[in-house]
């Protein structure tokens, strides 16, 4: 176990491990996405109140769930980077930020499209939606901050602080539908107690959530490999990978 964690910090080992991981996880993720989307779009029954517009749930909820979980991953990498100064943590943080931004963007855009037929409006300044918009800006802030600094260590430090401060927003997003009287519906799937969603609709949703987690892992590892190559372009293992030496 400890040797595995030590290996994670080794750039050439992680580059190879990441390549192997992507090679099998990428096709699995794509298949899960296709099956989940097919099931949700064409097989699952319509909602008795919202009709067919609810089918957006199969991308909206997974994107939002993974955007939130991804923020914790990024903030955790930020904490590791601040405390132990592990370079791999900086790289993980930098790799996770654009993926999180895209997932949050998907949640916001599909939410707006779902809102039009359901609430009659594209946008409301509701607690859940506003806090998700803040999450979007936090992710973009980390992306921009990494680019803003010439000095890599200073950039990583600033991004780590920003992402850690931003974690305050995550419980607010989770609880916003309970704390404020909101237009946004509360969670349908509950770990404790009965879910407010029928099994015929829940299985494709769970499948899509798993698929989006896979998507997050694959794209973050792909981004990390690009970063690793660049950081270590002078090293012999990168030169070997590029085809000389």
């Amino acid at each position, binding site marked *: 176990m400890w040797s595995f964690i030590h290996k994670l910090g080794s750039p050439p080992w992680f580059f190879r491990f990441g390549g192997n991981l992507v090679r099998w996880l990428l096709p699995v993720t794509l298949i899960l996405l296709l099956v989940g989307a097919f099931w949700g779009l064409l097989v699952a029954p319509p909602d008795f109140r919202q009709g067919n517009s609810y089918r957006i749930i199969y991308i909206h909820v997974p*994107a939002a769930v993974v955007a939130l979980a991804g923020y914790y991953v990024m903030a955790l990498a930020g904490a590791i980077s601040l405390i132990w100064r592990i370079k791999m943590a900086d790289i993980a943080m930098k790799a996770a930020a654009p993926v999180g931004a*895209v997932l949050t*963007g998907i949640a916001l855009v*599909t939410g707006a499209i779902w809102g039009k037929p359901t609430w009659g409006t594209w946008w409301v300044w509701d607690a859940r939606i506003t806090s998700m918009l803040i999450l979007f800006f936090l992710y973009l802030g980390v992306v921009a901050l990494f680019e803003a600094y010439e000095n890599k260590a200073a950039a990583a430090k600033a991004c780590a602080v920003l992402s850690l401060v931003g974690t305050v927003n995550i419980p607010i997003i989770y609880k916003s539908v309970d704390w404020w009287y909101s237009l946004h519906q509360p969670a349908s799937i509950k770990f404790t107690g009965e879910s407010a969603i029928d099994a015929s609709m829940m299985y494709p949703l769970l499948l899509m959530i798993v698929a989006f987690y896979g998507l997050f892992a694959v794209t973050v590892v792909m981004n990390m490999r690009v970063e690793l190559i660049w950081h270590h372009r002078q090293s012999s293992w990168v030169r070997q990978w590029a085809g*000389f030496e």
Partner: protein
Amino acid sequence: MYFESIAAAMDMNGHGVYVWLAYAITVSLLVWLFWAPARQLRVRRLWLIAEEQRRLASEALRSGATPPHDHAADGRSSSMESSG
């Protein structure tokens, strides 16, 4: 299958526009998410190769020999420096 025909699946009782638009936007963003790092890895590998060729050429120049000039590698490396 819930829908009886392709037309019904397209229309979704009037909600089809919203549903298919949401899925289309998501698919295009996800394709970009997968494609961008795959492309970057390729681009950076080419950059490294071009850089290595440049290094070898300058070494050859210093040792007195005239290196064969590779115009293609020059153009590639200078355009990649700005993107890297």
